[in-house]
């Protein structure tokens, strides 16, 4: 591991100032960062510890939810208001990692977790995301776990997280604080497709700090379904997050997103359009789910995700409209 110093800032301002220096990284739960430093994928010389900032509250006020960046995955998942009003969020978190990791992992770090592409995490291989311009061995190599949506000819790595998929159907805003000030970014714009620059994964600027996640309204009729190679403690092959507003037998609004298939959490606009204004009957749900893989570009070993995605979305839709 690259040697580093550990800085414990007194407040947000000094944290941002410290992290704006070159070769610096924030450390929250440390569960992804320390894996990456152990494997020499990331080589920061300074870690800026976020724990002293004590930004770990969960505010559920009326219809709104605000999550501070250091709130632990386990605490958010078990919060009574989250269980009642945002079940999709609790379910996505409980389907993530292990109880131990969920006691450590935080909201901010979770959003920024990096891909599980094996080539990316092994410095013995080329990888455009780790070393821009070095090539992508996954495109013609081991790609069973890789993305079918949002891929480019530079990178086909999947965004691996679950929580961000749920946040996409909750229309969350990510609050970012940097030296110029505070800004809010809709979750759908926070992660980026790889394009020609797969090493740039989000809109976060150097030194910028995630200071909150804001969710504007409840989504009681919502659900997260994750399909994986083993029953638990595994990343998604495919997952689906669904939130429906059904009134008088009609779907007024539908928000649907998928994980495990996209280079970023993938909102399924065509599925949503096929549901809106219809009655949630079996034929409607099936026709909508059939749109889930629109635009998919599979590689050699991940074509199975097309069928799996449609079926996962259908099952999730059936669960919430029952």
């Amino acid at each position, binding site marked *: 591991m690259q040697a580093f110093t550990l800085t414990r800032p007194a407040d947000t301002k000094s944290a941002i100032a410290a992290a704006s220096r070159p070769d610096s990284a924030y450390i929250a739960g*440390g569960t992804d960062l320390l*894996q990456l430093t152990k494997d020499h994928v990331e080589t920061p010389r300074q870690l800026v510890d976020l724990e002293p900032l004590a930004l770990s509250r969960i505010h559920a006020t009326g219809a709104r939810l605000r999550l501070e960046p250091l709130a632990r995955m386990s605490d958010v998942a078990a919060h009574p208001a989250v269980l009642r009003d945002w079940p999709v969020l609790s379910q996505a978190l409980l389907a993530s990692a292990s109880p*131990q990791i969920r006691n*450590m992992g935080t909201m901010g770090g979770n959003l920024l977790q990096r891909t599980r592409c094996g080539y990316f995490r092994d410095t013995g291989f080329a990888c455009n995301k780790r070393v821009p311009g070095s090539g992508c061995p996954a495109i013609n190599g081991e790609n069973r776990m890789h993305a079918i949506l949002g891929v480019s000819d530079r990178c086909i790595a999947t965004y691996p997280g679950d929580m961000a998929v749920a946040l996409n159907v909750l229309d969350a805003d990510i609050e970012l604080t940097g030296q110029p000030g505070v800004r809010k970014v809709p979750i759908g714009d926070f992660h980026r497709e790889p394009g020609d620059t797969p090493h740039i994964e989000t809109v976060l600027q150097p030194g910028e700090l995630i200071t909150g996640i804001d969710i504007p309204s409840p989504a009681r009729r919502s659900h997260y379904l994750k399909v994986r190679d083993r029953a638990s403690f595994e990343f998604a092959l495919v997952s689906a997050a669904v939130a429906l507003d059904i009134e008088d037998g009609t779907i007024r609004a539908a928000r649907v997103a998928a994980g495990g298939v996209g280079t970023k959490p993938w909102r399924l606009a065509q599925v949503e359009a096929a549901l809106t204004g219809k009655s949630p009957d079996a034929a409607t749900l099936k026709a909508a789910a059939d749109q889930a893989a629109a635009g998919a570009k599979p590689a050699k070993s991940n074509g199975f995700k097309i069928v799996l995605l449609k079926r996962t979305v259908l099952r999730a839709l059936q669960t919430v409209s029952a």
Partner: protein
Amino acid sequence: MADGSVTRRGVMVGAAGGVVFSTPRARADENPPATDAIAVKLRVNGEALHLEIDPRTSLLDALRETAGLTGTKKGCDRGACGACTVHLDDRRIVSCLTLAARCEGKHIRTIEGLSSADRLHPMQAAFVEHDGFQCGYCTPGQIMSAVALVKEGHAGSDGEIREWMSGNICRCGAYPNIVAAIRQAASAEG
């Protein structure tokens, strides 16, 4: 083992250090160049522990290599197996992905802190009674996880126990016996 004697621990380290699959980089990792050591005060099993450590030191390595508490095991060193599970301020965590330098002033409980005098903790006794292990390597992590699981209220059914033990892998496959041990210890407590 300067005196050349063979201890069980020496054999384990030797086996893990067989480095057949280890890349030169990973080997360099085991002997990182020294940086300025920092002073850290931990509370481990109720006792104060003063350490002078490299900021990179994991809590797992601090416990095993510096404090000599080798009950906590290193499996993957990447959060994926649970062998290194300890309690940090009463919550179960993986010590391999925890920096010891960030544990200043925190309470750490390891497998060594579970029994009182010569009496096993009820969870340890249940593992013995139900044969909840074969080689025993994963067992300290399993037991630390299981003790936390019962406290969290996640021992309601065998299915719930399995899900909430999913962070602890047992390569010997002692799972049915582990579940039986936890079920018994939980019902004895409840």
